[in-house]
C-alpha cells in the first residue's frame, strides 16, 4: 500500500489547478541551488530496496520512476517532458525529433521529423528505420510484455476476428502483417521523418511518444527478452554493469550535447545500489554517510518524522502528492454481492491505516474514486465514497456496514456465509508492515462481523493477481494516469479491453451499460464533454464498488548533502534525476 509498490507513477499534465491541489514543491532546494553554478563530475548514487528495476528495455518500462530515471540518463524518446520545476515541467519539448509531433487528418496522422547528429552508443546514427523497428516490438506481447499497449489498439493495422491485431511483432509476423505495420508506421524517403497512421483521432498521441515504446532500437542488436538486461544507450550515459547488486552507468562518448536540447549530464557516473535494507538506507541518509546518494524509494514510515521535522534536512527533502489513486480491487467474480463489497468499504478503518502510513502529512488523503485530483480536468469528488459522500466516516461507518450485511444476509446468503464464516481472502505483498496492518484490518472488519484471511505473496505479486485463476477475493493495487486524461485510467482499470482490469467485473450485470459509456467517452473529442463523462464513470464504478478506494498518495524523497538542484518534476511525480549535480 505504499507508493513504492504502486504499479506506475504516471504522467500528469499540470495545470495551475493541479499545483493548487496539493503539489507542494519544497522551496528551499530550488532557492539554494539557483545560487550555485552546476558542477560536473562525481558519482550520483541511488539507494534502492528492490532487487532491480522492473524493466530497462525501452519498450517495456512502464513504472513512472523507472521511466523518469532511464529517460533522464539513458534512453531518448521522440519528445520529452521539459525537466524544469513547476507546472512547466509537464510541457512537451522535442527530443530525438525536431518538433513535438505534427497532427493532421483530424489527429489520425502524426508526423515526427528526426534531429540530425543523434547516435546509438555503438556510433550508429539514429534513423527513422530504427524508430520504426523499435515501435514494432511492443506488438510481440509474448516477448516484449509489460509496457504500455496503446499502440496495439490505436495503430491502423487490420484486426483478426477476435479483435487482436494481425501483426504480432517483428519476430514472427507474416510478410503481409509486416507490410500492414510498415504502412501504419512509415518512414520518409530520406529516412528522417516517421509517420503514424491511427485508426481514430487521438489528440494527445504525442504524449505517448514520451514513452520508450516509441524509440529507436537497432534490429541487429535486438536480443528479444534479453534486451532488457543491457539496452543500447541513446542518451548521455551507457550501462557498463547490471548485476544483482548494482546498475552502473558511465558517460556515453557517442552522445553529443549539440544534438540534445533536453539533457545536461553533470555527474561522471550514475549508480543504483539494489537490494539494500530499508532501515539501512534511512540510516545512511540520516547520517549522511554517502553525501552523493539519494533514496530511490522514500523513507520508512517510522523514520519520516526524523527527516521532515528536523531543520537540518531542510535542503535535503521533498514531500509531494504523487499521481496515484490507491485501491483494493475486488475480484467481482468471487465477490458478486454488491452489499458485501460496500460493507467492506464502510467497515474498513481508513483513518487508522492512513495514520499508520504517516497520516495526511505523508500518506495522502482519503480517495474519492480512482481518478486522482492531479488529473485536474477529469477530477471531481464522486460524492459516492470518501470525503463529501453522506455515509463516509474515516474510522469506518459500522452502522451502515451492519445494515448492508443484514441486507446481504437475505439477498445473497452464500456470499454472506463466505464473508462471515469462511473469510474473505486478500492478496497482499510481503512486507514488514503487514505485522501491523493485518491486525488493524482484522479488528476493523470484525466490527461488522466480516472475517478476512490473507494470501501473502513473496514474489511476482502482479503476475499472480493479474491472473484470474490465481487472484483471490481482493487485491491491493494503485494506478496513476499515463497523461492528463482519464482515458488512461477508467478504461485501463475497468474496461474489458483495459490493461489492468483486476476487478474481473465483466460478468457484473451493471457492466454492459458502463462499457457502452466508456466507448462513447473514448470517442468524444470535446475535452470538456469527455471530462464530464469520465467523472460520471468514476462515480458509477464507485457505486458498483468494483474497487475499494483507499487513498490519493503522497511521496517523499531524501538526498545527501552533496546533491544540488534537486526539484520535483511533475510528469512522473519524481525528482528530475537528470538535472541533479554533485558538489564535492
Amino acid at each position, binding site marked *: 500500500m505504499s507508493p513504492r509498490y504502486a504499479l506506475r507513477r504516471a504522467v500528469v499534465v499540470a495545470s495551475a489547478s493541479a499545483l493548487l491541489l496539493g503539489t507542494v514543491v519544497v522551496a528551499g532546494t530550488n532557492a539554494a541551488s539557483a545560487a550555485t553554478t552546476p558542477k560536473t563530475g562525481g558519482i550520483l548514487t541511488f539507494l534502492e530496496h528492490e532487487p532491480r528495476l522492473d524493466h530497462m528495455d525501452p519498450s517495456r518500462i512502464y513504472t513512472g520512476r523507472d521511466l523518469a530515471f532511464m529517460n533522464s540518463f539513458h534512453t531518448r524518446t521522440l519528445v520529452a517532458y521539459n525537466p524544469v520545476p513547476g507546472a512547466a515541467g509537464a510541457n512537451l519539448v522535442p527530443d530525438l525529433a525536431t518538433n513535438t509531433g505534427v497532427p493532421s487528418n483530424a489527429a489520425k496522422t502524426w508526423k515526427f521529423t528526426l534531429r540530425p547528429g543523434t547516435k546509438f552508443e555503438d556510433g550508429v546514427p539514429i534513423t527513422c528505420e530504427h524508430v520504426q523497428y523499435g515501435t514494432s516490438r511492443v506488438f510481440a506481447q509474448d516477448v516484449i510484455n509489460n509496457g504500455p499497449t496503446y499502440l496495439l489498439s490505436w495503430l491502423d493495422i487490420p484486426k483478426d476476428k477476435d479483435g487482436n491485431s494481425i501483426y504480432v511483432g517483428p519476430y514472427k509476423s507474416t510478410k503481409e502483417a509486416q507490410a500492414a505495420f510498415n504502412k501504419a508506421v512509415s518512414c520518409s524517403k530520406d529516412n528522417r521523418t516517421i509517420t503514424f497512421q491511427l485508426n481514430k483521432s487521438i489528440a494527445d498521441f504525442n504524449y505517448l511518444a514520451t514513452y520508450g515504446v516509441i524509440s529507436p532500437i537497432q534490429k541487429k542488436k535486438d536480443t528479444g527478452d534479453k534486451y532488457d538486461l543491457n539496452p543500447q544507450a541513446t542518451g548521455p550515459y551507457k550501462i557498463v554493469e547490471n548485476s544483482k547488486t548494482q546498475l552502473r552507468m558511465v558517460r556515453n562518448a557517442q552522445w553529443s550535447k549539440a544534438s540534445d536540447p533536453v539533457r545536461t549530464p553533470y555527474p561522471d557516473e550514475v549508480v543504483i545500489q539494489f537490494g539494500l535494507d530499508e532501515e539501512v538506507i534511512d540510516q545512511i541518509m540520516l547520517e549522511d554517510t554517502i553525501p552523493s546518494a539519494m533514496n530511490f524509494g522514500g523513507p520508512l514510515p*517510522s523514520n519520516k518524522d526524523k527527516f521532515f521535522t528536523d531543520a537540518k534536512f531542510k535542503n535535503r527533502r521533498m514531500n509531494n502528492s504523487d499521481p496515484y489513486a490507491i485501491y483494493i480491487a475486488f475480484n467481482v467474480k468471487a465477490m458478486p454481492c454488491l452489499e458485501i463489497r460496500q460493507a467492506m468499504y464502510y467497515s474498513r478503518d481508513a483513518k*487508522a491505516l492512513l495514520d499508520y502510513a504517516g497520516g495526511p502529512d505523508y500518506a495522502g488523503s482519503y480517495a474519492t474514486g480512482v481518478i486522482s485530483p492531479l488529473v485536474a480536468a477529469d477530477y471531481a469528488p464522486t460524492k459516492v465514497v470518501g470525503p463529501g459522500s453522506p455515509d463516509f466516516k474515516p474510522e469506518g461507518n459500522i452502522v451502515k456496514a451492519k445494515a448492508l450485511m443484514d441486507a446481504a444476509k437475505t439477498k445473497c446468503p452464500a456470499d454472506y456465509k463466505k464473508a462471515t464464516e469462511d473469510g474473505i481472502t486478500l492478496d497482499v505483498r510481503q512486507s514488514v508492515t503487514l*505485522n501491523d496492518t493485518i491486525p488493524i484490518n482484522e479488528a476493523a472488519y470484525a466490527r461488522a462481523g466480516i472475517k478476512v484471511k490473507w494470501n501473502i505473496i513473496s514474489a511476482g505479486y502482479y503476475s499472480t493477481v493479474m491472473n484470474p485463476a490465481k487472484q483471490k477475493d481482493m487485491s491491493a493495487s494503485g494506478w496513476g494516469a499515463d497523461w492528463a486524461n482519464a482515458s488512461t485510467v477508467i478504461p485501463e482499470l475497468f474496461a474489458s479491453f483495459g490493461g489492468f482490469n483486476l476487478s474481473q467485473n465483466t460478468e457484473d450485470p451493471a457492466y454492459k451499460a458502463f462499457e457502452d459509456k466508456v466507448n462513447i467517452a473514448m470517442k468524444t473529442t470535446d475535452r470538456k464533454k469527455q471530462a464530464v463523462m469520465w467523472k460520471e464513470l468514476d462515480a458509477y464504478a464507485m457505486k458498483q464498488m468494483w474497487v475499494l478506494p483507499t487513498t490519493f498518495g503522497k511521496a517523499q524523497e531524501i538526498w545527501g548533502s552533496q546533491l544540488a538542484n534537486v526539484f520535483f518534476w511533475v510528469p512522473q511525480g519524481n525528482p528530475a534525476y537528470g538535472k541533479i549535480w554533485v558538489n564535492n
Partner: protein
Amino acid sequence: MSINSATNSEVDAPISASPAIAGRSPRQIAWSRFKRNKVGMAAAGISIFLLSMSLFAPIVCRLLGINPNDLNLEGLNSSGIPTGDLAGFSREHPLGVIPGTGRDLLAQLLYGSRISFMIAILTTATALTIGFFVGIVGGYFRGRVDGYLGRFTDFLLAFPAFFMIVALSEPMVDRIEKFGIAEGNGARVLFLILFLSFFGWPGFSRLIRSQVLSLREREFVTAAQAMGATRRRIILKELVPNLWAPVIVVVSLSLPGYLASEAVFSFLGLGVQPPASTWGILLSNATRFVTVMPSFFLITAASLVIVVLAFNLVGDALRDALDPRADK
C-alpha cells in the same frame, strides 16, 4: 583440576556420611549433584517459570488484565510511536505497547513465545529421536548398514534444505490444509516442524555416530564384548549413558537454534503469519523501530536472550551432573 581428589570425595562422601552403605542409583547421584549446582538450579527455576508463563499465557494475561489483540491506535503519533499514557511502562501495560498498533507487548510476548517454543521443542525432539536412533545403529553396526545409513544422511545433508523449505512452503501448507489436518497458522507450524526436523536429524545422527564410533573402540566396550554381553546391553548400558553429555550440549544449543530459525522464516515471510505473533515476528518488527523506540527492541531481544541463557545453563548443569566421570 585435581581430578583425583574430586573423584575420591564422590566415593568417600556417602561412606563417611552414614555408617550403613546405602546404594544409590546413577539417577539419584546425578540429582544430588545437580542440586548442588546453584547456577544450574537458578537457571532451571527461571526456565520452568518462563515456560509455564508461556504455556499458561491465557491465564497469565487474564490475571494481569492484558489482552494481546487489543489495539490502541489513538495513543500513537504519526510515526506509530506510543505517546501520552501509552508511552513507557504502566499498570495496564507492564512492558509498554508495540509501536504501529499499540498492542500490549507483554501479552504479545507471552502468546508469541508459545508458538516459538512449540516449534523449537517439537523440532528438536523429533530430529533428535531420529538422529539418535540412526546414529547409534550406524556407529555400532558399521559395515554395510552404516554405509547405507551414512550415504542416506550424506544425501540429506547435501540437500539444500533451506531452499526446499522456501519453495515447498506454499504448496505443502496448501496440501496440509486440503487434507484438513490443520488450518492457517496451524498448518504453517506443522510444516515448519516437519521440514526442520526432516532436514535436521542427519546433523544429530552424524554427531552421535562419530561418538559411537570412537566409544565402541574403547576398552570398556571391548571388555563388555569379551564378557559376552549382548548387543542390546552394550548399546543401552555401555554406549547410551556415555552419549548424554554431547547430546545435552547439542540440544541446549539447537533449541535456541530452532528458535532462531523460526525467527528467520518469519522474517522472510515464510513462517507463521500475522496477526499471530512469534519471537521472530516481534523481533523483525522491532528491528524497524530500533532507532525510534529502542525499548521495544531491547525487551524483545532480552526476553529471547534470557530464555536461551537459562536453557544453556540448565544444559551445562545437567551435563556435569550426568557425566559419570565429571569431577564434581
